């Protein structure tokens, strides 16, 4: 187990290197630089700014410096928010993302799994069709429509919840629900399919033949194997939640890091964009590892260290 973990973490290093290199290469291949302003700047001033951020050095030297700092966990100074480092920006914004994204995933798995289970148990009934119809609807409406709609109904018309900004638990509800919608729907569809497959398998028949009650069969025997596809979907879902959080933060005005990303890219804030990209890479790698561990726990046939 420990060996497996270590090997996986060691395997993550080249991946991270690739991500960092891709980000670096793409930003530096683009035409224009971070300090090309429309106002004409005195050449000396421009030169001194560029020297301060080491932009006057040859590219390979910049790359080496960047990787060296990255290895020490230093993401460098932000070009756009002068006098703030990227690390500080991320430390401020990231907890918001974790709270919103984490609750969205939790909602997706719990609610989506529950809906899928109900639909599977009432297969081909009216409620099954209705639930799955709603699920496709959830998949087909973009987050940036659901978000403003929820805000319009629950914040502006009903005054139940705050319309935006960041504070206590009540500020978390609307963004998390809006972000969760498509994933909940997808989880419901996955859960319905896998539950149907599991319920048709011989070991469930055996459990029925033993005279076990329906709740026992469902929770003790069917749930764990039926969760497998859901768990393997979590990997892509996490990547999707990251994407979605960019939108949700814009819609609800949350102080997370997603909204820095687009403005950072627009303003050529190289260090900020590279830092956030690498952070996203780390999150995805760690979550994939977690998913694999869960998988082995749910399905004893999976052996981790081959």
């Amino acid at each position: 187990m420990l060996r497996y973990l270590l090997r996986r973490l060691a395997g993550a290093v080249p991946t991270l290197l690739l991500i960092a290199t891709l980000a670096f290469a793409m930003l530096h291949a683009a035409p224009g630089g971070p300090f090309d302003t429309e106002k004409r700047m005195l050449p000396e001033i421009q030169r001194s700014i560029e020297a301060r951020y080491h932009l006057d050095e040859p590219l390979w030297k910049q790359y080496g410096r960047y990787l060296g700092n990255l290895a020490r966990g230093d993401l460098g100074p932000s070009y756009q928010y002068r006098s703030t480092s990227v690390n500080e920006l991320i430390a401020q914004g990231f907890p918001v993302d974790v709270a919103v994204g984490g609750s969205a995933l939790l909602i997706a798995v719990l609610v989506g799994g529950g809906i899928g289970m109900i639909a599977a148990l009432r297969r081909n009934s009216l409620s099954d069709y209705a639930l799955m119809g709603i699920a496709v609807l959830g998949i087909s409406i973009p987050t940036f429509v659901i978000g403003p709609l929820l805000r319009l109904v629950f914040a502006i018309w009903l005054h139940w919840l705050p319309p935006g900004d960041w504070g206590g638990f009540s500020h978390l509800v609307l963004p998390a629900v809006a972000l969760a919608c498509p994933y909940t729907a997808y989880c419901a569809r996955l859960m319905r399919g896998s539950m149907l497959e599991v319920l048709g398998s011989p070991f469930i028949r055996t459990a029925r033949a033993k005279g076990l009650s329906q709740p026992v069969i469902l929770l003790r025997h069917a749930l764990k194997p039926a969760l497998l596809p859901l768990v393997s979907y979590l990997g892509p879902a996490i990547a999707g939640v990251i994407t979605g959080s960019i939108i949700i933060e814009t819609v609800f005005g949350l102080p997370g890091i997603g909204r820095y990303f687009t403005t950072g890219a627009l303003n050529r804030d190289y260090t900020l964009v590279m830092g956030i990209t690498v952070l996203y890479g780390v999150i995805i790698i760690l979550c994939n590892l977690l998913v694999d561990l869960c998988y082995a726990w749910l399905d004893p046939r999976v052996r981790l260290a081959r």
Partner: protein
Amino acid sequence: MTQAAASAATSPTSAPGTPGAAAGSSSLWGDAWRRLKANRAAMAGGSVLLLCIVAALVLPLLSPYDYYTLDWNHLYQTPALGAGWHWLGTDALGRDLLVRVMWGCRISLLVGIVASLVTVIIGVLWGTTAGYVGGRTDGLMMRFVDVLYSVPFIPFVIVLMVLFGRELLLIFVAIGAVSWLDIARIVRGQTLSLKSREFVEAARVSGVGGFTMILRHLVPNLIGIVIIYSTLTIPTVILFEAFLSFLGLGVQSPMTSLGSMVADGTSQMQSYPHLLIIPALFLAAIIYGFNYLGDGLRDALDPRDR
């Protein structure tokens, strides 16, 4: 999971190949078509799609307005039927909503289909090559896919769109280049099971090798799964284009897509709900259509789950 994989390995034999079972009347495609016709949800989805496509192609030709024609006398008009009126109303600049929605359908469908084609071509070639060549090449190629799975692609696409202009072509390529990973994995699995079959061996004995083998003998046998997969990729791509449009990185004005119309509509939904509802309806209809058609195709072409 393992069960599914095992039956995947055996399923093609039972459905298409066996000459005895396919006695004259029903070929693989005939069978599939019959099953598809029996599936009401899939047929409904397909018809809605067909309707949207025909309308998107024909209506702009019949209308007196272009997607960029401004009508200063009729700003923000609500839908009204009658000769010489804007049937679905107008937007903030007095542009005819019907024509714009139809152009939006055209662009969204085009983005979806072309990007899916790019995805499929890369994915199928990568997957078949890895699966067919096998050995160390296979290990290397699939390891590469594993690494790419951990790359946070959305940030990269955003950076790409920001830095290298917002061209339609670039959207296709970017989205296509990002989403081929899944299909490469699926196709590799299928190829591995096809590889050990008699017809491949027969072809090899008669001197077919390398690339010809892949293109002439393996790829045609993968068409079923590829069709299913592309039908389900298209809606994802359309939504992704909508996401980019929301960030202002998608199709640029005056040209439009359903996604960018929905994004525009969301900002004015309190005062002019028709600007949101009408394009959102078409977007939902198209995505519904593809999803149900894709599910139906899966049941029709891949009947082992029944």
